[in-house]
């Protein structure tokens, strides 16, 4: 559905997008994740035909974004960052205007507006001037506009930016729902959001793609051992010695938390010593009240890998 090949974009001397390539299949919901300034918005703008690339090519629904721009625009619904709208128009007027631009016949327009209004839950304030709406409401109107012509592809640039937690949850649910009938590509710099909504994540930093895959695939790439947290009640020294003695256990740190020993155990990667800890505790008659595994998070991965890229980019810039 979306194919990007060796795409680059220069803003004067600054290379915003550096030779990226990726593919998105029909029906996928993909998250474009990266720190601010990574090139996410630029890439999305090239895909939606707002600006041309400096080199490379991209195609959406089989149409090239440069030479068949009108055809691409008809297939794409775009919600830019900060959902720009006309403050003097009423939401219904705006949606009607966009429906007209999309080629929806005048007899079908009211029905189309009603359909998207219901889907995005803007019907309650649809007659209010856009200037009077809150951030979250404007975002929903923008999303309704993007859905108006039932596009094959939805491009959402930071769709939850500036929303409160309840609105964020609502928007995520809506996006997940929409993904059933559309191909969705969204961008964000908020990790949990991409983890929560997308099947696949493309991590971009300093204009380059540094990783791509589903959240679980990416987590597997994280280097470093896993940690175990356990809380055991017993004599501190004995507990520590016993646990350290388990096969596969590395360092053990204990702290006393109201009578319980809180153990942070570093084990060899791939070794699940939780059962052994249970056995030791029950053999010695020590109560065990929590045992859990902490996998290195996606966040660590993200920070690690994007920091690397930023250093490299700065290195290039200073040479």
């Amino acid at each position, binding site marked *: 559905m979306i194919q990007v090949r060796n795409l680059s974009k220069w*803003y004067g001397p600054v290379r915003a997008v550096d030779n990226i390539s990726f593919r998105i299949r029909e029906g996928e919901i993909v998250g474009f994740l990266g720190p601010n300034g990574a090139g996410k918005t630029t890439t999305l*703008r090239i895909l*939606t*035909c*707002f*600006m*041309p690339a400096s080199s490379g090519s991209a195609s959406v629904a089989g149409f090239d974004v440069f030479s068949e721009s*009108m055809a691409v*625009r*008809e297939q*794409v619904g*775009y919600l*830019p960052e*900060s959902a*720009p*709208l*006309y*403050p*003097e*128009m009423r939401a219904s*007027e705006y949606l009607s*205007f*966009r429906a*007209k*631009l*999309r*080629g929806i016949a005048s007899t079908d327009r009211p029905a189309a507006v009603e359909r998207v209004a219901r889907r995005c839950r803007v019907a309650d304030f649809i007659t209010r001037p856009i200037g009077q709406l809150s951030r979250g409401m404007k975002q929903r109107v923008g999303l309704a*506009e993007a859905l108006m012509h039932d596009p094959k592809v939805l491009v959402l640039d930071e769709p939850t930016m500036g929303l409160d937690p309840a609105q964020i949850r609502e928007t995520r649910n809506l996006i997940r729902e929409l993904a059933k009938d559309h191909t969705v590509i969204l961008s964000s710099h908020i990790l949990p959001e991409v983890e929560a909504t997308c099947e696949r994540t493309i991590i971009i930093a300093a204009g380059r793609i540094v990783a791509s895959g589903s959240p679980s695939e990416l987590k597997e790439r994280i280097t470093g051992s896993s940690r175990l947290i356990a809380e055991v009640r017993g004599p501190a020294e004995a507990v520590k010695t016993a646990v350290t003695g388990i096969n596969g256990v590395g360092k053990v740190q204990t702290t006393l938390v109201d009578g319980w020993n809180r153990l942070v155990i570093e084990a060899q990667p791939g070794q699940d010593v939780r059962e052994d800890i249970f056995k030791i505790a029950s053999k010695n008659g020590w109560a065990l009240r929590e045992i859990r595994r902490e996998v290195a998070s996606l966040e660590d991965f993200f920070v690690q890998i994007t920091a690397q890229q930023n250093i490299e980019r700065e290195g290039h810039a200073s040479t």
Partner: protein
Amino acid sequence: MRNVLAITQRELGAFFFSPIAYVVLFAFTFMVGLLFVFLTDNFTPGSEASLRDTFNWLPPLLCIAVPILTMRLISEEYRSGTIETLMTAPISDAEVVVGKFLGAFIFYAIMLAATLFYVVLLSVYGEPDYGLLASGYFGLLMIGAMFVAIGLFFSATTHNQIIAALLGAFFLLLLTILAWIIVQFTDVEGPIQLLLQMVSIMDRFQHFNRGLVDVNNLVFFCGGTAFFLFLAVKVVESRRWR
């Protein structure tokens, strides 16, 4: 065509919502009233029932009024970011510019229509030459079209409305007043005089005002309108490449 009309409709609606448009409407109508009463010979018994003298003063007035009307047309889109949703819709840049031009021009025509009141006044108290009046209005529509195109062009060049208005007004005053003054009151000769005469909007308008609907003036105004609309399209297109 449908795209153009959609934009036209939206822009016209936006004009009626905008307080600046009403201020300009009021100020313009007021100024025309003042001109009609004080600066012309209309109230001496036996004088000609015509709006010619009133119309004579309109081009300088329009040099200020029209750029103020058109200043927000594209600048506002840049400022608010709505240019992004506009330029990613299946509509060409030319359709956007033409649509905005038509919207502004229709509003301008409505503004002119407010002066029809004086025509009614004249017909009640005298026998005005309707042909002359028609020619005068036609001339005003022609210069209006060109002024709107020029204002639209300057609006496309910047995201700052004030700069768009100032540049537009300055440029129009140059073409309208300055050229005329230089030709009338100084001793320029040869090619410079020729150039200034060709460009002098005041000169050309006065032909319309006197009842002369001249083909070369028609070509000038229609061509000038088309030229600045073309430039505006190019400027808007160039935004994509930056």
